[in-house]
């Protein structure tokens, strides 16, 4: 209850974490231009957990890469980060990529992977302290001196999350972070993410194609569909926090939200 009160007071602030209007993207292919996103408009409040949901190939990752400043949007698009036009990767924004194996530096230990973004920026003592805290938060302190390839997939994804958290980001951008994991590990990491968010208060933009995951984790779900894709549905998920893998998923509110999202996806296909 107290968290939702905090959110109301935060969303009363005029400055959104992100706000996009008329956002479009075109890829130049050999066969001609391919419009991926068309007139996408949404905003994301500070502290909000926003999921972007849609079938594979709809441009969810493209949208996230634009928010990350890794990809420039098409002409006429307006993308604002904390009230200012977005022009490249921002301090305060951290990304967790889908493919942990190719994103981690396999030649560095877990500890040194996490430290990467702080090296040369933060004094050694503070760096060590922050790295330890981040590893502790994702439960990897015992594996700090191992190499990524010695860890399971779930642990490697935790390393990536720690690497993002150590930067103390205001916004966490996550691109299907749990997509490659088995159901059990996925559930564990979802709950760890909830906890991390509670501790850090970070805004999360979470890309997924898993309806249950989106509903379970989010304050709000955006459904992206069509070619080119638009935001076809926007749905508030009004469920108490923290959520629980068993009780939340039996909650009528959860089932209603899940139903509504499936309807939206079905409608988009017809």
């Amino acid at each position, binding site marked *: 209850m107290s968290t939702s009160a905090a959110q109301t007071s935060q969303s009363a602030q005029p400055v959104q974490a992100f706000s996009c209007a008329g956002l479009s993207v075109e890829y130049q292919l050999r066969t001609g231009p391919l419009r991926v996103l068309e007139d996408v408009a949404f905003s994301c409040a500070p502290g909000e957990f926003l999921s972007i949901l849609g079938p594979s190939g709809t441009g969810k990752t493209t949208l996230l890469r634009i928010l990350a400043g890794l990809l420039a949007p098409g002409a006429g698009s307006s993308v604002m980060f904390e009230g200012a036009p977005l022009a490249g990767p921002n301090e305060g924004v951290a*990304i967790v990529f889908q493919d942990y194996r190719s994103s981690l*530096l396999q*030649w560095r230990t877990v500890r040194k992977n996490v430290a990467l973004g702080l090296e040369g920026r933060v004094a050694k003592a503070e760096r060590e302290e922050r790295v330890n805290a981040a590893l502790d938060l994702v439960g990897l302190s015992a594996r700090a001196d191992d*190499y990524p390839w010695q860890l399971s997939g779930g642990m490697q994804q935790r390393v990536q999350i720690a690497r993002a958290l150590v930067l103390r980001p205001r916004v966490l951008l996550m691109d299907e972070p749990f997509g490659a994991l088995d159901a059990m590990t996925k559930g564990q990491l979802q709950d760890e993410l909830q906890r991390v968010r509670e501790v850090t208060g970070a805004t999360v933009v979470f890309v997924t194609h898993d309806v249950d995951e989106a509903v379970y984790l989010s304050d709000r779900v955006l459904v992206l569909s069509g070619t080119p894709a638009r935001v076809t549905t926007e749905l508030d998920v009004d469920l108490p926090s923290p959520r629980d893998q068993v009780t939340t998923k039996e909650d009528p509110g959860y089932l209603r939200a899940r139903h509504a999202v499936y309807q939206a996806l079905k409608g988009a296909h017809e």
Partner: protein
Amino acid sequence: MTAVARSRRRTGPPSLNWLVGLIIPVALIAAWQIAKSAGALPYTNVPSPLQIWDAAVQLAGNGQLGGNFGHTIAVCLIGWAIGSAIGAAAGVALGLSHRVWSYSMASVDVLRSIPAISFIPIAVIIFLQTTTMEVSIAAWVSIWPVAVSTMTGVAGVSAEHRELAASLRLNWRAQVSKLALPTALPKMLVALRLALSGALVLAIVAEIVGNPHGVGYALVNAQQQSEPAQMFAYILLTGVVGLVLNGLLTLAYRRLAPGFHLAESRRTGNGN
């Protein structure tokens, strides 16, 4: 540290398997000795292994062996270090800057195609019959393999790592030192080993035809004084020196960059 220890344990305790590698050389030396003693060798100037051993002991005793090898190894290592550093820097520039690549790659391909040995007369004209001449040749031969492998290595930074670097807003120097060079390192090691044996060969050749010092000059001297056992001693020991230098380099790589060779040994069948 723990990772290294754990993975060593997985592959078993350090075994004496390398001893089997000695079987063939020992058998060959024994056959050689027997053939020579039995008078079955048609070339009278080829000494027996025992005569070579005696020559080596004698040269070691009067200090010539240590002095000559000391000179040649020093030249080889100094030239190799200088050439490798130049090669690595050039490789980074070639691999990361399209402009540098466009302007220089044709020249690089021409220069590295010319046998390094043919530059010795030129080096003698420039540096005269000096140790500097030798070092310059050892460096020259080291530059090219290191430059080319560093170039392809640093260009191999994955799209994911580029995006990571961009999102962490790593500056140019950090991108080179934390992503590009580590990515290139396994390829560079192969080149560094090639360069090291190249530098040893070229140092000796430069001593044979240019600078009257070291192992190369000792070989010429022994030939002129009709001391074939000494020549063989120098030649065989040069092989041992090459082996040891290569082993030390591999050992240094494993010690200094434990994450690399362990990650490589895990990646089966992937040469990159």
